[in-house]
C-alpha cells in the first residue's frame, strides 16, 4: 500500500515548485488544496505561479507554515490548552521562554495574547495533545490534499507536527531538497536539533524505513549544465544516498562550465559575463566593489552565470586541502546550483586545481 504521505527529494533546478503548480493545475476544478511553505518569498512565488497556471482553481490556498499552525491548530483549539485564552497577534522577537513551564501559557503567549514565534510550533504540539488531535479530523475534511514545499526548512517541533500529519492518513505531498537545507523555521529550538538542516534527511529515512512515507528522488535538473551538476553532487559523499543528478541542460554558450578567476581579473570577468556575484554574508568581500547576493538568499533563484567569492573553508576545499562541514556544503551547493551555464570562483594561487583558470581576452 502506498503511504498517504510522499516525499519527493528533488535536486536544484528540477522544477520542484513547478511540479506542485502543475499538479494543482491538473487537479479537478473543485479540488480543495492547501499548499504550505515556510518562507514569504516562496509563498509569493507560489501565489504568482498558481495565479498563472491554475488561476481557474478557486479551491487552492497558499499559506505560510506558521500561519497554518495558527489557523488550523492553535487558534481554533487553544481553549483545550488554556481555557478562555484567544490568539490576538504574533510576536516575532521574544527570546525563548526557557524558564516557563511547558504547561504554562506564559511560555507561549504574551500578556496581550500574542503568540511567541519561537514557541509557536511547540504550542501547536501542546494544543494537539490537549485537544486529542481533533484538528486532524477538521483539517482532513477541509482539504483533499496538502502540499508542503521546501519541507527541509522545518525543524524542532515542526517535525513533531509533521509526524502527526503524516500518520493521520491525510494525503500529504512533500517536496524538498536536503542539500539546500540552509534555512530553518526555528534555529534556536533545541527540540530535534540533530534533525535540523541536512539532518532532516535522517529523519525522513527513518520514517521511510518504518513505512510511514515513501520517498522518490527527482534527479533531473533543467537548469545546471552537467559540469555544474556533478560538481554540486560531489559536495555530498555517497553515504548520503543521493542519486546522481542528470542534467537536461544541453544548451551551449561561449562560456560554459566551471572556472577559477584571479582576483585581478574579476572586474573584467564580471563586466564581460554579467554573472550573479555571490558571497557568504555581508561580512565577506567588504573591500570588493561588486554588487553581491548572499549564498543563502540566492536560494530559489535561477541565473545564467554565477561568480562566487569563496569563504576560507571553501578556498581550502577547492585547493584540495580540506573538507567542508555539512552546513558549509549545503551553502555552497545552493550557490553553485543557481547557474545554468557557468560558475566561476574568485581564487588566486590554485594552479594544481582541477578547475581551469579563465584567461582574460580568451
Amino acid at each position: 500500500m502506498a503511504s498517504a504521505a510522499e516525499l519527493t527529494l528533488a535536486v536544484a533546478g528540477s522544477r520542484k515548485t513547478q511540479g506542485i503548480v502543475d499538479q494543482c493545475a491538473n487537479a479537478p476544478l473543485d479540488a480543495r488544496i492547501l499548499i504550505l511553505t515556510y518562507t514569504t518569498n516562496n509563498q509569493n512565488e507560489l501565489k504568482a505561479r498558481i495565479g498563472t497556471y491554475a488561476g481557474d482553481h478557486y479551491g487552492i490556498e497558499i499559506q505560510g507554515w506558521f500561519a497554518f499552525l495558527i489557523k488550523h491548530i492553535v487558534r481554533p483549539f487553544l481553549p483545550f490548552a488554556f481555557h478562555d485564552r484567544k490568539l490576538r497577534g504574533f510576536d516575532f522577537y521574544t527570546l525563548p521562554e526557557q524558564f516557563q513551564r511547558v504547561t504554562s501559557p506564559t511560555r507561549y503567549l504574551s500578556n496581550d495574547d500574542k503568540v511567541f514565534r519561537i514557541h509557536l510550533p511547540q504550542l501547536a504540539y501542546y494544543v494537539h495533545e490537549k485537544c486529542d488531535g481533533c484538528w486532524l479530523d477538521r483539517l482532513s475534511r477541509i482539504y483533499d490534499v496538502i502540499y508542503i514545499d521546501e519541507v527541509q526548512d522545518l525543524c524542532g517541533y515542526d517535525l513533531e507536527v509533521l509526524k502527526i500529519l503524516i500518520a493521520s492518513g491525510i494525503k500529504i505531498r512533500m517536496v524538498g531538497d536536503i542539500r539546500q537545507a540552509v534555512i530553518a523555521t526555528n534555529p534556536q529550538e533545541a527540540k530535534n536539533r540533530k534533525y535540523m538542516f541536512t539532518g532532516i534527511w535522517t529523519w525522513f529515512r527513518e520514517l521511510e524505513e518504518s513505512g510511514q512515507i515513501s520517498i522518490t528522488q527527482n534527479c533531473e535538473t533543467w537548469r545546471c549544465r552537467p559540469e555544474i551538476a556533478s560538481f554540486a553532487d560531489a559536495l555530498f559523499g555517497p553515504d548520503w544516498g543521493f542519486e546522481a543528478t542528470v542534467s537536461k541542460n544541453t544548451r551551449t554558450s561561449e562560456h560554459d562550465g566551471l572556472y577559477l578567476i584571479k582576483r585581478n581579473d574579476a572586474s573584467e570577468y564580471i563586466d564581460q559575463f554579467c554573472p550573479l556575484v555571490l558571497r557568504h554574508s555581508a561580512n565577506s568581500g567588504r573591500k570588493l566593489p561588486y554588487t553581491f547576493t548572499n549564498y543563502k538568499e540566492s536560494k530559489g533563484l535561477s541565473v545564467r552565470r554565477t561568480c562566487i567569492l569563496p569563504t576560507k573553508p571553501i578556498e581550502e576545499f577547492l585547493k584540495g586541502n580540506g573538507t567542508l562541514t555539512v552546513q558549509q556544503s549545503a551553502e555552497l551547493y545552493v550557490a553553485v546550483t543557481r547557474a545554468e551555464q557557468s560558475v566561476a570562483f574568485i581564487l588566486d594561487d590554485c594552479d594544481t586545481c582541477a578547475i581551469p583558470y579563465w584567461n582574460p581576452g580568451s
Partner: protein
Amino acid sequence: MIEKVRIRGYRKFRDVTVELREGINIFVGDNESGKSTLLEALALVLTGYVNSRVASEELNPFWFNTEIVDEFFAARAEGKKVQLPTISIEVFFKDDDRLQRLRGAHNSDLPTRECSGIKIEILPNNDYGAELEAFVEKDTELIPVEFYKIEWRSFADDVIVRRPKEISVAVIDSRTIRTSSGVDYYLRSMLNDTLTVEQRTQLSVAYRSVKEAMTTDHLSQVNTDLAALKGLYDNAKLSLAMDQTSRTSWEGAVTPHLGMVPFGLSGQGHQAAVKIMLAMARHAESARIAMIEEPENHLSHTSLNKLLKAIEEISGEDQQLLITTHSSFVLNRLGLDALRLVSDGVVAPMTSISNDTISYFKKLPGYDTLRVVLASKVVLVEGASDEILFSRFYRDQYGVDPIECGIDVICIRGLSFKRFLELAKVINRKCAFLRDLDKYTETELDAHYANYTTTSIKLFRGQVQHGSTLEPQVSAINDEGKLRSILGLSTTESPIEWMLKNKTEAALRIAEHTESIVAPEYFLEAIEFING
C-alpha cells in the same frame, strides 16, 4: 443542523440554552414571551442582520436584558466596579462536513468542547474605556451602545464578516412588509440561494451587456449633443454612460412578481407562501435553516392548509425549521412533538408525546391544544353545561371567573380526554378533569384514568348514587322547588327531566340566576384543587 442555541443578555433572555431537533421546531407562548426574540437572536448570529438591517446599525440599548442592566446600574450606584453588560449568542451545529471551517473550541461549553458553530458578542469597546466610564457616571439608565463593538466569530475564532456561505438562512415573517418592493435582505439572499451559480453568472453577464447596449445604442445621440456643450473644464467632453458598479447589479434591478402583481403589492399571505416556496428550493450544498413567524397570519384556512403542507415537505429535505405560532391548527398539523413552550424568556425542554397522540391531533387539528399549553392551569370538562356550571360554582367560591385566575376551562369530547391528559402531563400542567360516570362505577372510572393522574393531574367525578351525569348530580342535592324556580319551570314540569332534555339551556339559566345553588361535591373538590 443546529444542535443548540445559547443566548445571554439579549432582551428577554438572561441566559437560556435551547436545544433544537431535526426538522420542525414549533415555538409557542404568550405575547411577549420571547418566542419571536428567539428567532430574531438566531437570525442575528446566523446572518449578522436584525430585521433586515446590519446589526451594527441596529444596535440599541434595548437589546440588553433589562434585569442585567438594572443590576448593573444598581451595583454601580453602590460603588461596585462591575463591568458593563454584554450580549452573547452562540449557535452550536451538529457535526457536518460542510461546516468544518467553523469548527473549534471557542464556545461557552464546559468542559471545553469543540464543534462547529458561530457566535456574536456585543461588548464594551476597550478602546473607549474612558468614554464608557464617563457615560455611566452620568445619571442614565441606558447602555452607551455607541462605545460598544460587535464581534462576530466562528468557534474556530476566525472573524466572520458576512453570512458564511455554508449556512443558508431563510427568514419568513409575514407580519410586516419592510420595504416598498417587499424584497428585504432575507428575501434577496433566499433568491440568491435558490439560483444556481450558472444562472446567476448568466444573469449578471446579460445585464451587463444590456447596460452596454444602452450606452452605445441609446445614449450615443445624447452624448453627441452633450459633447457640443462649451466651456467645460479642460475641454473634456461630458457624456453619459450606464452605471457599471456592483451597486447597480441585476439583483437590484429585478423584483419578484406574483402572477402579474409585483411582490410588494401582493397579499401578505401570498408573500409568505412565496418565501416558503423559495426556502424549499434552496440548494443542499449549505446547511439550510428556515425561520417562519406565525404562518397562520393573513391566510384563509384553505391557504394555511396548503402552506402547512409545503412546510412539511421542506422539513423532510434535511432542512431545519423554526416556527412560531398562535394557532393550535398549525401546531397540531405540524406535530405536537415539535412543540417548544416559551414563557417569559424561558424555553421549556423538548416534550415526548406518544406517536399515537401526535397523529391523533394531526388528523383532528381543530382541537384547541394551545389552550392547554398556554394556560397556567387547566380544567377539562366534557360538555358545555359542565363548563358553564363550573364557572358559576367557581364564582360562587371566589367571586371571579376562573379565567381571571389563569384557569382555562376547556370543553372536550369524551374520546379525546386521554390525549389532552397526555399533553398536560408532558408539559407538566396543573389539571383538574371532570368526568361523568356514565355506565361505570366509581372504581371502574378511577382505574380507567389511573395512568393519567399525578399529583398535579386529578380526576373528579360524582358518586353513583347521585346519578350517571351532571344533571342528576345537581338535582340530587338541590331542592326540587328551588330548582324549578331557578329554571323558570311550571309546577307541572320535572326539573330533572327538563334539564336532561335542555342541558345547555338549563346550565345557562342556573349560571345567570342569582339564587344560590348547591354544587356537587366533586365540583367543589375540583375548584379547591385547581385553586390550590
